[in-house]
């Protein structure tokens, strides 16, 4: 190895700065998947995290327009955030309907399919001759919201988390944590971790060791808090000692979002944005995507389409609706043509009749002419 002398450098050391400039210009894609029953504060959490209304809260006016379909939908909300001239294309994926029905068997399929589809889509685009403008919707992290029962994980939670953990960076979150006293919360977290270990659920982990002492300590703090308890609020309230904070105002006190004695929101925000956003993105690209690609390549050739095992019933319905519309339009056009054809025929018949009338008229005149001529010539001969 040849090393240049300090002070007389050729400028290699400037490469990180250049990379910074390039990365800053390019901005970043960031996709977060929110998974959990409705009413666990997912929307509020996202709005609290980004201190802006990414997703508008639910409206109740149309809840009586009954949709008999009991499906889990995939809802994507896109936002472009910018801070100090660094831009992030944020995509938040919500899963309304998950866990909300009496029978939730297989309700995780649309979610699992969505995650796999993004890997699939990226893989296909990457195999194309032209691959400059890739659309990348691969999910960088999945926040799984757990109901604060205080007991343990439910069978449904375990089924879904097992499947999510092998495909995406899974981060378990205890929702609406202001319903648990500190002792209850501690017991609950411990039990959840026991179940996660016993059931082999893979949650997101990151390297703790770092160059400086402070970072290592901070990393260990964050890991120790998993699963993260959250309280969400976009409203400003007054505490008893006169501070204005983001929180929830009860008759018996104010639960503060950013108070670390009240919940782990700050640590989670640190993880998702300030310190580990890059690791989340990288591990998705380097680990999860590569795993997917490898497993697909082992069984498929390049360019071969993926075998679809389950068709989402919602798509079938849309297909039916489209087919109906199409058939309807074709029928309308056919009717239009038919009546036009009939008009033409009627016109032709009418013209034919006129023609015949004229023709017989001419014949009559000719006959008259002839009879007149015949009548005339004998007179002329006399």
């Amino acid at each position: 190895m040849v090393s240049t002398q300090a002070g007389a450098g050729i400028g290699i050391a400037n490469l990180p700065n250049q990379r910074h400039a390039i990365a800053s210009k390019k901005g970043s894609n960031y996709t977060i998947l929110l998974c959990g029953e409705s009413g666990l504060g997912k929307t509020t959490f996202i709005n609290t995290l980004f201190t802006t209304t990414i997703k508008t809260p639910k409206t109740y006016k149309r809840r009586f327009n009954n949709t008999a379909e009991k499906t889990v939908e995939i809802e994507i909300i896109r936002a472009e955030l910018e801070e100090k001239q660094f831009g992030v294309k944020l995509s938040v994926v919500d899963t309304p309907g998950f866990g909300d029905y009496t029978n939730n068997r297989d309700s995780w399929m649309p979610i699992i399919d969505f995650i796999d589809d993004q890997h699939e889509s990226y893989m296909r685009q990457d195999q194309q001759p032209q691959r400059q403008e890739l659309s990348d919707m691969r999910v960088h992290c999945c926040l799984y919201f757990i109901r604060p029962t205080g007991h343990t994980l439910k069978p449904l939670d375990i089924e879904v988390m097992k499947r999510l953990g092998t495909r995406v960076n899974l981060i378990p979150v205890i929702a609406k944590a202001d319903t648990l006293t500190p002792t209850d919360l501690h017991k609950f977290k411990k039990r959840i971790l026991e179940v996660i270990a016993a059931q082999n659920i893979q949650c997101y982990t990151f390297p703790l060791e770092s160059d400086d002492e402070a970072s290592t300590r901070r990393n260990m703090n964050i890991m120790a808090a998993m699963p993260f308890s959250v309280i969400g609020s976009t409203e400003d309230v007054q505490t008893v000692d006169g501070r204005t904070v983001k929180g929830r105002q009860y008759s018996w006190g104010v639960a503060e979002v950013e108070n670390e004695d009240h919940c782990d929101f700050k640590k989670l925000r640190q993880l998702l944005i300030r310190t580990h956003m890059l690791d989340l993105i990288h591990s998705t690209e380097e680990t999860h995507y590569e795993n997917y690609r490898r497993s697909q390549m082992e069984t498929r050739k390049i360019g071969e389409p993926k075998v679809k095992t389950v068709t989402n019933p919602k798509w079938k319905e849309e297909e039916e609706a489209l087919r109906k519309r199409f058939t309807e339009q074709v029928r309308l056009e056919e009717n239009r043509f038919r009546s036009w054809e009939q008009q033409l025929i009627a016109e032709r018949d009418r013209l034919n009749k006129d023609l015949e009338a004229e023709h017989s008229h001419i014949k009559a005149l000719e006959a008259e002419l002839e009879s007149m001529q015949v009548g005339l010539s004998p007179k002329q001969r006399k």
Partner: protein
Amino acid sequence: MAHRIGRRKNVKKGFQFTLMVVGASGLGRTTFINTLCDADVVPKRECDEPEMAHVEEAIKIKPYTVELDEDGVKISLTVVDTPGFGDMIDNEYCFQEILGYLERQYDDILSEESRIKRNPRFRDNRVHALLYFITPTGHSLREIDIELMKRLSPRINVIPVVGKADTFTPQELADFKKRVMEDIEHHNIPIYNFPYDPEEDDEETIDENSELRSLLPFALIGCEEEIMVNGRKVRGRQYPWGIVEVDNTQHCDFAKLRFALLSSHLQDLKEITHDYLYENYRTEKLSRSAENLSD
């Protein structure tokens, strides 16, 4: 049967009342029962081995009986707990289990009534009221909530309650209660809503009942521990930001519900069960067997 005997005899002998409690686990059902009876009636749920956490447990029906003393009146209270409701991935089975239990108690009375020689020590196990714990989502009723209340209200007095109500701020609670009642009306669910007759009843009764009706669904917080607040001992939950008191009517509706169930409306609930719900069941069942016989 037993309830037709004069009131004086009852006060001495005491009343009998059976209450069923239904709701998904983690909504404070067990804690509520223990708080209601002011005793450790239902043992705390033992969480199974973490390795078995993925195993789905079917619903179980578990009755517990306690002797209570309400201001000198003895009440023999039977609480029927239903652990496992709504905990499985597919919960279609739960409704039939509960319905089956309720109807079996009616069947027992029916066969007892038709005996030539009746058993004087026969125990009436009919359930007089069902408290249904709604999950405090903050949105509106879920499918399982609607299904359960619809299917069971023809056989029992259903009273909807909101468990773990300390999850709501006062405004959120008011909005949630309003939406729940709108849902109940929209789906035509005949819950027990403290009925009164504006023509016949006196003003006091009307006021009492309309107040209770306005509190539906009752917001409940349960707690078995006592803590010190300003020098006095209260039943409450201690958070870093404050203390929630179970018996404080500003914090939740527990005290009002307890009084309605065990004092003011106990008799009404029993009468409706016997004179109306049981009679309907009896008519339906006997006409069905008459049809079967005539086939």
